[in-house]
């Protein structure tokens, strides 16, 4: 028995939605980083599902690239967060508000 494409697409849409909502409503920067991973992985689910459905390798290859890039992104994000935490002792985005206008 194979899982229909539409189920997989629905799953990825839900994961994407959770990611975007999390990113826009949560204030803890660590949770924002997790939400970003959800968004990227939603796209990965899509790509793998389409790749399987279309019998083309291209989607799978792209996923390898996006996973590598996501890892680099997480590294940079955590480094920036660490620099911020050393200066401010907070990971709450609402407390990071020096500039206004």
């Amino acid at each position, binding site marked *: 028995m194979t899982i229909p494409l539409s189920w997989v*697409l629905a799953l*990825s849409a839900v994961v*994407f939605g959770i*990611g*975007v909502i999390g*990113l826009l409503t949560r204030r803890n*920067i660590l949770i*924002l980083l997790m939400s*970003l991973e959800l*968004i*990227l992985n*939603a*796209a*990965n689910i*899509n*790509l793998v*599902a*389409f790749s399987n*459905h*279309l019998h*083309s390798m*291209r*989607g799978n*290859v*792209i996923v390898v*690239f*996006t996973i590598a*890039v996501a890892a*680099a*992104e997480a590294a*940079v*994000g955590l*480094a*920036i*967060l660490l*620099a*911020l935490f*050393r*200066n*401010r002792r907070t990971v709450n*985005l609402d407390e*990071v*508000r*020096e*500039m206004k*206008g």
Partner: protein
Amino acid sequence: MIQFNAADLVWLLPEIILFVTASAVVLLSVIVRPEARSGLAALAVIGALAAGWAAYGLSDGNVELFSRMVIVDPFATYFRYLFVLAVLGGVLLSVRTLQTEGGNRSEYYGLMLFAAIGMMVMAEAGDLLMVYIGLELMSLSLYILAGFYRRETRSNEAAIKYFILGTLASGIFVYGLSLLYGLTGTTSIRAIGEIVSAGGLSRPALVLALAMVGTAFAFKVAAVPFHMWTPDVYEGAPTPVTAFMSVGPKAAGFAVFLRVFLEAFPAAQPDWNNLVIVLSILTMAVGNIIAIAQTSVKRMLAYSSIGHAGYILIGLVGGTAVGAGAVLFYLLMYTITNLGAFGILVVLQREKGRVETLDDFAGLGKTHPAAALGMLIFLFSLTGIPPMAGFFGKFYLFTAAVKAGYVWLAVLGVLMSAVSAFYYLRVVLAMYMQEPAAAGAGEPMSQPSAVLAVTIAAFLTVGIGILLNPLLSLAAASLPKM
């Protein structure tokens, strides 16, 4: 199956030169003693010049490489020149401030070169996967650069805001890419275009994918309503980085806009045209009107750069060749002028403390006449007063809009330029009509390389009229395939 021919790598010589230089700079910055590290800036400049020279050597090429992953054509070459210019400006402006504020860690120059490679890859991409790789290479380098003064809380704040909204944009882009792949079975820009024009695709799905890809680039060029990050990031980032960031990524974003929307989606033009019109109006209005309320010149220039993205979007409306040419030409004028305007802020910087507020500019015409004259030139150019570079840029943009049948949009653009004159000229007024503040704030530090960069930018801004015809024909010869 992707065809790989090693001999084709010669077409990527500018990127390879930049990559080798950037890697060398990063490695050497660990070895070289702190006093000698400004030599690495010289290395970065030489690398950028060599890349520009290599781009010139390859400028008559019109080839598609690696199964159309990379396209080296006049369009790509034009953007190669533009990014070399931007990175040269960025490096030259940074040398002294990096020593006083940035802890003298010279991997900074390497990151700037990496960002430039990312921009070039975006402009050369023939496949959405390449667009994504270039976008991430550029963005990741810029996130680090924005937060490079890591002991400074404003720099931290700029980096974290830029990072979160930037990665959201690239996440949306990949999701849009995955939908396009599912719809068409390919990610090659031209192949997608052929399938879209053949028709038969589900229209709502296509519009959704289109909107997602478009959103990502609206983020990168800071178009309203995707501009929220811009003022804070531009204000908090180190000033030379802001100068670089306000020109490079914007040009790269528009390069992809032109390549993707004119090449892949001409058939969907009615769908995206209205979207671009709305974006353009919002961007011009919000950027220019909020800029009026700013007291920090740096933040004012950030809003002004949002406004300029709005003018450039006018050139995309209608999807005409004349409009695309005007966009290319305007991007060059904007790059030179904006590098110069932020450059003046760098040049005026003191040993301790930046010069950013309107009050700092009071009486500058008396105390530092040369810097005041430079600022005057750049602000006039941004307003669009003849014979400065910005005037010619706007002239061709608005002419293109009129030719495409959008007279009212051109009129709106001119009106918005009039609004912008208000806040630009307020700085001029402060410089020449107000008395200098009490002395004691200290003199600007000596920054020969930054002064050199600003002087060149000023001469180009004033003298562009002489070079007008060659530059215009260069832009006209560099259009994307439509």
